[in-house]
C-alpha cells in the first residue's frame, strides 16, 4: 500500500537550533517526493522536491532534504531554525515526471513545528 509516515506529530525547538523532520514512505514505483509547508493562515507552499540525481536537495528558506532509498526516507533538515519557521510541514509522494499529468499526491499527517525564542 502507498503511504507516507511522519512519525513526529509535534516538535518544539529553540531558535537557532538545528532541525530534522522525519518522513518515511511506501510507494510501489520510483517515488517523486515533496516537502510542503503551511504557515498559519496560508496555503501549502512547496519547500523542495526530489525525483532523481543528487540525493541531497536544496530548497527554499534554507531547507534541505536527503533521499535514502535503502531506508525509504526523505528527511527534511535545517541547520538553524528561525522563529518564522514555525508552521506545519508535510511530506508527500507522487508519481514521477512523465507518468502523465497526474499529481495525485499521498500525504503524511504533518509535523507541527513550534520555535521557542
Amino acid at each position, binding site marked *: 500500500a502507498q503511504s*507516507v509516515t511522519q512519525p513526529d506529530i509535534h516538535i518544539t525547538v529553540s531558535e537557532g537550533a538545528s532541525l530534522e523532520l522525519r518522513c518515511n514512505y511506501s510507494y510501489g514505483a520510483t517515488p*517523486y517526493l*515533496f516537502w*510542503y509547508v503551511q504557515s498559519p*493562515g*496560508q*496555503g*501549502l*507552499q*512547496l519547500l523542495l*522536491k526530489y*525525483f532523481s540525481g543528487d540525493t541531497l536537495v536544496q530548497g527554499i528558506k534554507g531547507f534541505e532534504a536527503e533521499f535514502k532509498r535503502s531506508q525509504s526516507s526523505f528527511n527534511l533538515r535545517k541547520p538553524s531554525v528561525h522563529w518564522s519557521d514555525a508552521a506545519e510541514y*508535510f511530506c*508527500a509522494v507522487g508519481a514521477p*515526471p512523465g507518468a502523465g*499529468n*497526474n*499529481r*495525485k*499526491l*499521498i*500525504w*503524511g*499527517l*504533518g509535523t507541527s513545528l513550534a520555535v521557542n525564542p
Partner: protein
Amino acid sequence: EAGVTQFPSHSVIEKGQTVTLRCDPISGHDNLYWYRRVMGKEIKFLLHFVKESKQDESGMPNNRFLAERTGGTYSTLKVQPAELEDSGVYFCASSQAGTSALHFGNGTRLTVT
C-alpha cells in the same frame, strides 16, 4: 502572477444545507486538483481536472460531492447535502501541463454543524 485563489476562506453551514466552494487556478494552468484535510487526518486527494475534463475522481467521497470546471478555468466543488463528516479544509491546487509541482490555494475551512 496571481496565485491560486479559493473562496470562501471559511464557511459554516448546518447539516443538510448546500455549500459551493470555488477555486480560481493560476492562469494557464490546465491541471486543477481538489484535496481535503479532515481534522487529525492526512490530506486526501479528491479529484483532478485537465482543462474541463475530469482526469481522476477516485477520491471523491460519495455522490453528495459534485465538482465542475466549465470552460477549463475556475472550478467549483458543491456539497449537497452536507454532513458533519464533511467538515475540514478543502484545498485547491493547479499546475501547468507536464510540470512537477502543485501550487496551492489557502484553502476553504468548512464547518458543518
